[in-house]
């Protein structure tokens, strides 16, 4: 099983890192490590809650602020989006 990232999701991840890294690089690294770990762990048997769109699943990152949206296609996992969690979301 292999994990891949949609370009848009990767760009979002980089954007999140850069936004925080200009203020606190260490915190940005920690945040990205959580995201990386969560995505890498999708390369297993665990299936998380189904997303609102058929074929998608949502996996919380342990930073408490972001949620990975992914799909399973055959033996591969594709991270399609990285979105704010409810606790990290503001209007």
């Amino acid at each position, binding site marked *: 099983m292999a*994990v891949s990232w949609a370009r848009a999701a990767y760009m979002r991840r980089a954007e999140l890192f850069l936004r925080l890294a200009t203020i606190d*690089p*260490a915190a940005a690294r920690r945040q990205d490590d959580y995201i990386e770990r969560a995505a*890498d762990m999708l390369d297993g048997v665990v299936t*998380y*809650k189904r997303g609102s769109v058929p*074929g998608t699943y*949502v996996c919380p990152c342990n930073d408490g602020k972001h*949620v990975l949206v992914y799909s399973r296609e055959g033996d591969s996992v594709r991270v399609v989006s990285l979105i704010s969690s409810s*606790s990290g979301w503001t209007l």
Partner: protein
Amino acid sequence: MGHLISLKALRDIVAADGLQNVRIVHETAHWCIELVMCGTRKTLATVAGDVRRFSSRDIAIKLLAKPGSHQGSFAMELAALVFDESFDNLVTPSSGNSASYEAYVEEEIRRSYATKGPVLPAGEVNGRMAVLKASFPTKKPG
């Protein structure tokens, strides 16, 4: 099996130990307890698996004992064990508007899933991020 306590009771336990606030947020399939201490929000723990051997107070103490630690994921068992409030009552997005949040999530998922762009292997993405991380100092500027 521990006993059920209300969210208020858990707040009281946490407050008695000197913390100012406790927030319960719903992270998709998981529960996460966040404690606000001295104005700094720290996720004290996310605990997966069997927490049934702990009493509710033990859980609170365990969280306090490990500030900043991450122990996996705080799964639904904890909610069933600790809280006697309904799921909806526990969902408290920071905006206070869970309906809007759900709409935001659905729109984001729909839009991103529909986009059939190129994909990159996780190893390559992680490598690029490692390069990005290395370009920043290890400490706060200034």
